[in-house]
């Protein structure tokens, strides 16, 4: 049996573990609540039938980046750290399997579970948009594709953080703080410096919603300079669609290499 087959086998068991451990169901419940909220708020305060299909679809897609962050946290935050903390690593690691097979088998399971959640969310948006407009704009499918690329990339980054720790809870909390606070603060502060935050994955993730802007895809300003007064200059950058994808790909590759090296060398003391 080759490494890839072993990876798929391990991935299957890990996915079963996610389903049984209720994480998947909890995230699906949260997703369901968000969908219900979007639908009811729009129905009560807005008039989806009178807006364009693109506008309705973009309303739905606006929560997608947050959902991807939640998904990465749920399925990646403690993925590797918990093997050390819960001592399941004592069962898993002495097997004649390369460490990277375990790491990426687990990653595939997380990706399958996370991808399922994102797909269900977008499917609900499809039904919702189609219900009011009898069509779904092409931008919506691009948004879905970008959301999946963001998931692939962010999950890889989350796995990298998870390999740094030996305590699942600590790994989960630190990753949550990073994604919900630190990255957003950096993105905000950087606007005052006039530097494009090309190094930020959350900046790249903006393409999930930017795709809906303008008359055609990519029809939005890359750079906007504002002068709110008191001599302050705020520079707002929007990533090009290709740029967003490139940043996410960069994160995927770099964090995949680092996590593979760290996990390969990590000891079960």
């Amino acid at each position, binding site marked *: *049996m080759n490494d890839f087959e*072993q990876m798929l*086998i*391990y991935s299957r*068991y890990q996915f*079963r*573990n996610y389903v*049984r*451990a209720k994480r998947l169901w909890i995230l699906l419940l949260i997703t369901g609540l968000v969908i219900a909220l979007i639908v009811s708020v729009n129905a009560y305060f807005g008039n989806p039938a009178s807006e364009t299909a693109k506008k309705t679809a973009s309303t739905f897609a606006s929560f997608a980046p947050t959902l991807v962050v939640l998904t990465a946290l749920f399925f990646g935050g403690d993925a590797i750290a918990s093997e050390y903390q*819960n*001592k*399941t*690593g*004592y*069962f*898993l*690691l*002495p*097997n*004649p*399997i*390369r460490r990277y097979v375990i790491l990426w088998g687990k990653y595939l399971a997380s990706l399958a579970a996370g991808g399922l959640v994102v797909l269900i969310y977008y499917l609900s948006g499809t039904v919702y948009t189609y219900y009011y407009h009898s069509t779904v704009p092409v931008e919506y499918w691009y948004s879905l594709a970008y959301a999946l690329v963001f998931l692939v990339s962010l999950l890889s980054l989350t796995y990298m953080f998870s390999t740094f720790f030996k305590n699942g809870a600590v790994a989960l909390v630190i990753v949550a703080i990073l994604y919900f606070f630190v990255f957003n603060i950096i993105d905000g502060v950087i606007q005052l410096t006039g530097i494009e935050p090309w190094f930020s994955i959350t900046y790249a993730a903006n393409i999930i919603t930017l795709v809906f802007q303008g008359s055609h895809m990519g029809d939005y300003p890359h750079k906007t300079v504002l002068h709110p007064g008191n001599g302050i200059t705020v520079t707002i950058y929007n990533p090009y669609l290709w740029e967003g994808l490139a940043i996410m790909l960069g994160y995927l590759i770099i964090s995949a290499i680092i996590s593979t090296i760290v996990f390969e*060398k990590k*000891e*079960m*003391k």
Partner: protein
Amino acid sequence: MYLEAVNLTKRYGKFYALNDLNVKVEGSKCVGYLGPNGAGKTTTLKLFTSLLRPTRGEAIINGHSVQKDKVQALKDVAAVVETPELYPTFTPEEILQMSCALRSVNKCDIKHALEEVGMYEWRNKRVGKFSKGMKQRIALAAALVGNPEILILDEPTSGMDPRGMAEIREVIRNMKKSQRLIFMSSHLLSEVAEVCDEVIMIDRGKFVLHSSMDDVIKRFGGNSVYVTVLEMPDMAKIESIPGVKSVEKVSENRLNIVYEPGEDAQYRILKELIYAGVKVTEYNAAKQMLENAYLKLIGGDRND
């Protein structure tokens, strides 16, 4: 089939958990690995199972370095190190299936493996609420299920009740019958004496002794046995048995008999004891010899 440690060293800062261990165990047998707490027993087993990386030296299994070629080295090896936790949502049957799949084993007799460790009736229950002893049994079954050539066991009866301990020892004895090398650490001298053919001792990360159990008996025998009895007999009666030099009562039901050199005397004394109506329940020289060896070589101050 063999395991070999070549200059195997593990250092944490200035502390040597294992210092230049050179030892080779080979063939179908059970080798007991003894030492006090912190001697480096578990460190050694972790180095042989790729859970730790050596600071220096190599752990070699069947000619393959665990550090350089883990997959080949561990191909015919199963290990139970510490008390592994199992995925709580899985059933024992699923854990064993997973173990087979991960080890690329085609023929997996899950039923037999679970029966052997007395867990077959629990096969469909999730392991999350199992006791430590039950998890240890499942881990042992998962190790057994692939029919490995070499078994590395770290205190296999740890956390078990006396009945469980006896059952697992029986399992290990049975495993020995089917051409396997069992390398087993234990903190129970009696367990090693009962189950193993060879013994290795280490202390403070350093090699102390590698010997067959027979050699241990010869070298550390001291011509005395501990005899456990149901009722304490008349001491004078035992002292009068030919070959007996002295008798000492060590507890309510235990005697220490010092006899004249030679295994003949040992046999004669047992025969005379039975003939005299002494209700002997235990007469195990090996256990005593191992204890003697352990105390002489390592000392009792950090008794494990």
